[in-house]
């Protein structure tokens, strides 16, 4: 029973991380900017939160410190995403290139600064692995009071956001404007929609959401090694976004399917049937990516993505 429940809580946490990050990516891509830097934004959000977790004295009540940590993660990643926005929207840079650079940059910056923070006399170079057991205790509560089954309450925030995001995308003027900027920017412009401003907001939202995703990801554990960035979850979210066809509910479902396989890689030794197969642990690690690739084969033929994603909007050349 305990195994089943902790599996479930693992699964839900993975679903939440992927959903929230992919939703962020959806805002960015729907408005016309490719969200390759999700991984970087997650890392940077997680990193900013860790700095606060490291520095906050334990005398501050846990409620307030939790709130501070959440806000730092979100705002940190939001600010980081503006680096993408400036380069790609205002300066019309190659979005894949800048996204890649930002992903490397955030891992490198986090590692360098975390090592700097963890330096001691005995360990002059520091450690890229940061321990935050106190916050692990704050963010994870015992589910239904059962000892040993941890439940990260941050994922409640994420699941509350699912219907809100759905409504924003489909039922609000902002959602329609967002999609129009990614589908046909010059048409949107002719209707008086400020294309670049809308795109800035889209990218900013992607950062804010990814920041929350990054925080949730690292607080599933009591420590995190920043040398691994966000462990590829940002890329996974991007894949989930694509096979969710940029639609909120499909993205949510996609995140669910994907998380099933991701969870399998964590819990397979405790399932007798799978453990008896004698397959290498690396096979289970690779499985989610293999499944993702196969799903992409079936969903990519009909390209449902925003038509103008990846193309900077230039008023002058579209005249």
């Amino acid at each position, binding site marked *: 029973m305990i195994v089943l429940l902790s599996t479930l809580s693992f699964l839900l946490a993975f679903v939440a991380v992927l959903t929230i990050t992919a939703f962020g990516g959806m805002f960015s891509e729907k408005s016309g900017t490719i969200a*390759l830097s999700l991984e970087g934004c997650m890392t940077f959000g997680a990193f900013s939160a860790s700095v606060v977790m490291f520095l906050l004295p334990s005398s501050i009540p846990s409620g307030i410190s939790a709130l501070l940590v959440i806000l730092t993660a979100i705002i940190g990643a939001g600010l980081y995403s503006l*680096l993408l926005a400036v*380069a*790609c929207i205002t*300066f*019309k*840079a*190659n979005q*894949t*290139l*800048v996204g*890649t*650079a*930002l*992903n*490397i*940059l955030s*891992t*490198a*910056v986090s*590692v*360098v*600064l975390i*090592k*700097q923070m963890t*330096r001691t006399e005995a360990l*002059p*170079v*520091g450690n*890229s692995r940061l321990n935050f057991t106190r916050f692990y205790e704050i963010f994870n509560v015992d589910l239904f009071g059962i000892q040993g089954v941890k439940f990260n309450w941050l994922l409640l925030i994420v699941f509350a956001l699912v219907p809100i995001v759905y409504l924003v995308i489909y039922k609000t003027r902002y959602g329609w404007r967002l999609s129009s900027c990614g589908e046909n920017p010059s048409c949107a412009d002719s209707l008086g929609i400020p294309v670049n401003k809308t795109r800035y907001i889209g990218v900013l939202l992607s950062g804010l959401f990814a920041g929350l995703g990054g925080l949730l990801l690292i607080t599933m554990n009591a420590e995190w090694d920043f*040398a*691994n*960035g966000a*462990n*590829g979850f940002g*890329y996974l979210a*991007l*894949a989930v976004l*694509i096979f969710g066809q940029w639609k909120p509910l499909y993205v949510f479902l996609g995140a669910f399917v994907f998380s099933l396989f991701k969870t399998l890689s964590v819990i397979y030794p405790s399932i007798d049937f799978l453990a008896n197969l004698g397959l*290498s*642990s*690396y*096979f289970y*690690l*690779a499985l989610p*990516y*293999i499944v*993702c*690739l196969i799903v*992409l*084969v079936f969903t*990519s*033929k009909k*390209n449902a993505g925003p038509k103008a994603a990846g193309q900077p909007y230039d008023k002058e050349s579209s005249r």
Partner: protein
Amino acid sequence: MTKIKTFFSTLLKKEGTKTVITSLWCALLGLILGFLLLLFINAKEAAYGMTSVLGNYLIFSNPQDRLNYFGQTLAKTAPLIAMSLSILVCYKAGLFNIGGSGQYSIAVIVITFLGIGANMPWYLTMIVAMIASMLWAMITGALKAFFNVNEVISGIMLNWIALYITNGILSTNSIVWDSPHSEAFTISTTSNSYIPSIGLDKLFANNSIVGLGMILILVVVVIIFILFKKTTLGYELKTTGLNSDAASYAGMNKVKNVLIATAISGALAGLAASLNLQNGFTSWRLSSTPVDIGFQGISSAFLGGLHPIGVIFSSYFIVHISEGGSMITDLGFSPEVASIMTSLIIYLSGFVFFIKELLRRHEIKLEFAKATRGKEGQA
């Protein structure tokens, strides 16, 4: 005097010169930002740290040490050039090869087994490795050509799959795996798979990692240069990259070109692995994220202005500061400082296109003004 003036003004108008100037600006700005970060971390040691990053082997006072580390920097540049070319070939054909890490690690499996396990001649090991990574890269190509799967996403997925395959296969084979160090055995200089140093080691204080590989990579650079400058195939790849609809309208086979581009770039990524491991210097270590070199290749390909000759210099520059970065650990800086600098440089080089576009528009305006003035004069 006027001759020199016109020479310089035509030189400035050249696309290549603009690329060089903007790349240098990006590099300089990236280094300055990196220096500011060092100041922030440890103001006292920042200047010395920066000197080590920029100086690399020059900080040694003993000339033998200098030569030795200079050789090491050069030898490490060779694989990065190969990887940059891999990115470059795909980019010219309109594809973004983010899967270099995966292609590299598939080649690593082959090299480790043929080199350590079978002790095959170096050229055979190299060729088989290149074929393996070529086939791996063509998965991306085939998915793109037949199923319209975005190559960036499939490349990323294949990076992780290849990483786990490589970790899984190598770490469970005691013939090739050095368990206590959790890394594969390194190909020794006496092995058949060691790329011969043909006396070049003598020039670099007997540093055995310098060798034929460095000459080989220069030959490959020239081949890629000729491919895009002189051959029909190169022309077709470029046309597909610029406008795939126009290319198919002109009778070029898009499917074929995508497959060929990914095949060439896969083989080049395999060559990178071969040049990196077959010089008896390093081997595969257990890693939990796709290897860096695939991303460094993206950096140096763009910093080199996406030109085969340009990537020689940009690759050298990136290796130079990375090697320098690995020397500053004893100052309490972590070697990732170099990685911050390179990624900043790449971020900044994203702005290059915009700057070039501005220059172009400015030139057109000037020419237009000249032309209209000329007409008025006639009237």
